[in-house]
């Protein structure tokens, strides 16, 4: 059995934030994950708080006013701000994040709905609808996950201040009739492709129009692709998230994964945590399934960042009981069997929506004994409605970051006490 200071379970934004922050402070960290995390689904922006349910303009103020059951109430605005600042420092070489808790940016979704978000990469920030007035949305025939006319129409209908239209380029990508955003991003990594795009578009643009592209402007060096397009077209250019796989989300994953490795941490995929060995009120090791084998990993601290129902961190069985899948922690907020879990209206507030693992002020699970050294972060937590609130990225980032700080503080205190 190998031994680490901290085992982080899950490799989404929450798990990676915790792991990188810890490794950078000298902790021996290993991330165990079933597969790549939700970064590949998310749009690549850091949505902290968008709706309460009114649209939020100043997320720092709004999250301070959330009820005590909300996970942000455990974190607090100051820690969220610290997490955002830390996150921004992880990006360099031009591809950086901009924004803050002061004011939400207002970025368009692929159907032209303005979405409040706290942080966005520079390649997206130009789409801030508080300042944009004329937009040309550019699509690519064969990219079935992005329809520029829907974006343009949605924008024009949503915001009277915006005039938007669309165009579609017919260019060979991967020599295939269809491709996803990643395929297009790889094409954009090629200089010839970028030049063709610039040539094709130049004659179609009107003075004053800014250009919206699917979020696929390169995966290897997105900042170079984006700035070359801005210069070549002579106007602001911005990315709009597509259906998954999310290229900007993959960039986040790659940056944090590389940071983890540089700081001496490790990341193991296809490692499924199926249980724990416990002694003296603490988890001493995790049981991990690797293919048909079972292994043990020991650690002083465990961070559970496996996600919610979408990622498999939580599961609801056919007898309508819910469980946390890695350690079997109790799940709060699930209606009793027989009680209604969902409302018949899709956009209603569903009784099960805020289900998750409830934690105390130090992110430790409540209602379960023997997990003194376990911290729970991200979408596994009870009390939030990430999609409705547009809060998922901010929650994952800030609770992951907070878990790292708590572990560092407590293990530092322990070491001092021993010394």
């Amino acid at each position, binding site marked *: 059995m190998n031994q680490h200071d901290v085992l982080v379970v899950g490799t989404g934004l929450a798990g990676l934030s915790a792991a990188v922050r810890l490794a950078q402070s000298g902790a021996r960290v290993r991330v165990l994950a079933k597969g790549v995390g939700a970064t590949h689904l998310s749009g690549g922006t850091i949505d902290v708080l968008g709706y309460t349910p009114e649209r939020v303009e100043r997320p720092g103020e709004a999250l301070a006013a959330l009820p005590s059951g909300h996970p942000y109430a455990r974190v607090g605005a100051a820690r969220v701000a610290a997490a955002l600042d830390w996150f921004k420092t992880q990006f360099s070489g031009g591809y950086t994040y901009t924004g803050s808790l002061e004011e939400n940016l207002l970025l368009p979704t692929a*159907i032209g*709905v303005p979405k409040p978000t706290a942080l966005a990469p520079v390649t997206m920030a130009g789409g801030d609808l508080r300042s944009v007035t004329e937009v040309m949305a550019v699509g690519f025939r064969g990219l079935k996950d992005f329809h520029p006319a*829907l974006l343009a129409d949605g924008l024009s209908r949503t915001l009277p201040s915006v005039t938007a239209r669309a165009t579609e380029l017919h260019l060979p990508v991967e020599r295939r009739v269809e491709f996803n955003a990643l395929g297009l991003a790889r094409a954009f990594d090629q200089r010839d492709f970028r030049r063709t795009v610039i040539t094709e578009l130049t004659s179609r643009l009107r003075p004053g129009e800014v250009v919206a592209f699917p979020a696929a402007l390169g995966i290897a060096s997105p900042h170079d692709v984006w700035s070359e397009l801005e210069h070549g077209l002579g106007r602001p250019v911005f990315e709009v998230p597509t*259906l*998954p796989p999310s290229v900007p989300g993959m960039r986040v994953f790659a940056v944090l994964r590389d940071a983890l490795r540089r700081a001496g941490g490790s990341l193991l995929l296809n490692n499924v945590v199926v249980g724990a060995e416990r002694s003296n009120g603490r988890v001493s090791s995790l049981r991990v399934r690797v293919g048909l084998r079972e292994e043990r990993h020991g650690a002083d601290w465990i961070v559970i960042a496996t996600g919610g*129902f979408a990622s498999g961190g939580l*599961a609801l069985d056919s007898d309508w009981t819910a469980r946390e899948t890695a350690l079997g922690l109790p799940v709060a907020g699930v209606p009793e069997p027989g009680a209604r879990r969902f409302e018949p209206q899709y956009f209603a507030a569903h009784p099960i929506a805020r289900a998750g693992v409830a934690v105390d002020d130090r992110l430790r699970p409540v209602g379960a004994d023997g997990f003194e050294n376990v911290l729970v972060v991200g979408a596994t937590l009870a009390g939030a409605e990430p999609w409705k609130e547009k809060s998922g990225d901010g929650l994952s980032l800030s609770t992951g970051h907070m878990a790292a700080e708590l572990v560092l503080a407590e293990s530092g205190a322990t070491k001092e006490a021993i010394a």
Partner: protein
Amino acid sequence: MAVASRRIQTEVLVIGGGATGLGTVWDLALRGFDTVLVERADLIEGTSGRFHGLLHSGGRYVVKDPVAAKECVDENALLRRLMPDCIEDTGGLFVETPDDDPEYADRFLEGCRASSLPVDEISVAEALRREPRLNPKIRRAFAVPDASIDAWKTASSLARGATAEGARVLTYHRVVDLHRDDGAMTGARVRDERSGEEFDIEARFILNASGPWAAQILHMAGIEDVGVIPGKGIMIAMNHRLVNTVINRCVMPADGDILVPIRTVSVIGTTDMRAADPDELEVTQDEVDQMLEDGERLVPGFKQARALRVWAGARPLFQDARAGEVADTRDVSRTHAVVDHAARDGVKGLLTMSGGKLTTFRLMAQDLVDAMCDQLGEQRPCRTEEVKPPGNEDGEYYDVGSRLRRRERTMADDELICECELIGRKRLEEELVRRWTTNLDDIRRLLRLGMGPCQGGFCIYRATGIMHGVERLDGEQAALSLHHFLQERWKGVWPILYGDQLRQARLDDWIFQGLLDIEHLPGATA
């Protein structure tokens, strides 16, 4: 206020675009009658589109209802010849589980022989070889010619056939009133549900094929207390073909005793509850739990599979207080019956089809049109036993791999819009040209778009984008259509969300709410 800007004249007006109505308009067209069919929604959006997909061999009825069994035996054989493109030849098994009365199986065998139903008792080992997931504790197994039938393909073929013969099929046209002159029907007033326009259809004869809605239609003609009782049945589509053969429990027909493999899923059915209103069929948690338990009896581990969608259909049960005046002699067996309103209510030019089942839709149509011919004193022989509706010319059944084979041929030159159901962009664009619709739910029924495991998570945005791109939808219609689709879809998924399907639904939320934010699209929550 709607102004009558047009008027249609026809010989026969058929009300209802389910299997019966479509069979009827096909039958009428082949006999040379000028015909109009009106349907308040999309084709087979009512009962016919909400069944389990079983083309009965007749086995289910051999003990309880031999007349119905014989009809099924005959119609099964006919439809296999006439509409093979709509049928998958799955075969069926009747199996006796440890919970079943062992004496029933012998009565079942006897009944099969009496109804000339070809039946073959096979060993339990052979049954398990054919269907390895089947409960290994079954005691006996009987092979019968059950099959699964794609109701949407069937409907589309009949509608195309009838239209080619000159009939007019008007979907989204709701009957708002019936016109009666003295003791005879003269036509109907209908409303185009899309434009809001109302107009009259003049007809010599009205055939009411509205199934469980028949009483609502008859009410407009001033005819009351026709005992149409909607019988609610729920069904659950499970991801994967848990079985490749139709599995029936060898018992008196009861709840949750049929499992039908159709397309890429298997459907378990069903319940039977009286419902007050065929438009208000609520699915309860108890019914879902019961159906899942019933599935476990047939296929152990059933509850671990993903449940994709649950729905309820309304059977057109018929229990007329004045049953003695029902024209057709078949009413004794309660299979289906033609209600003669001339004899029953003194109203000429109006017949109602009651009862019945999808397997016998052709026979029902024949009986209905025959009864009309009798009243008109104008004998024209039925031709539906001979003429194949379009699409069935090559005489081959479809199978579960048909779409994949077709798809593989076009892999290199067509975008795949729906990965679950293998629907290409060209297929979608062809269908948009063929049928004028702005409704994603219509597209779902036409192409099975959004019917697979992801329940529209990816393909619905794509389909909307394509429809909007070819200017079938403007921005506002796209918003409405998206919202309508999401709500319709949700109706069928929320009661069965557990396990991996809940996970899938959360991923869909991620797309619809997190990435696209459809909730805040103006007009979407209208």
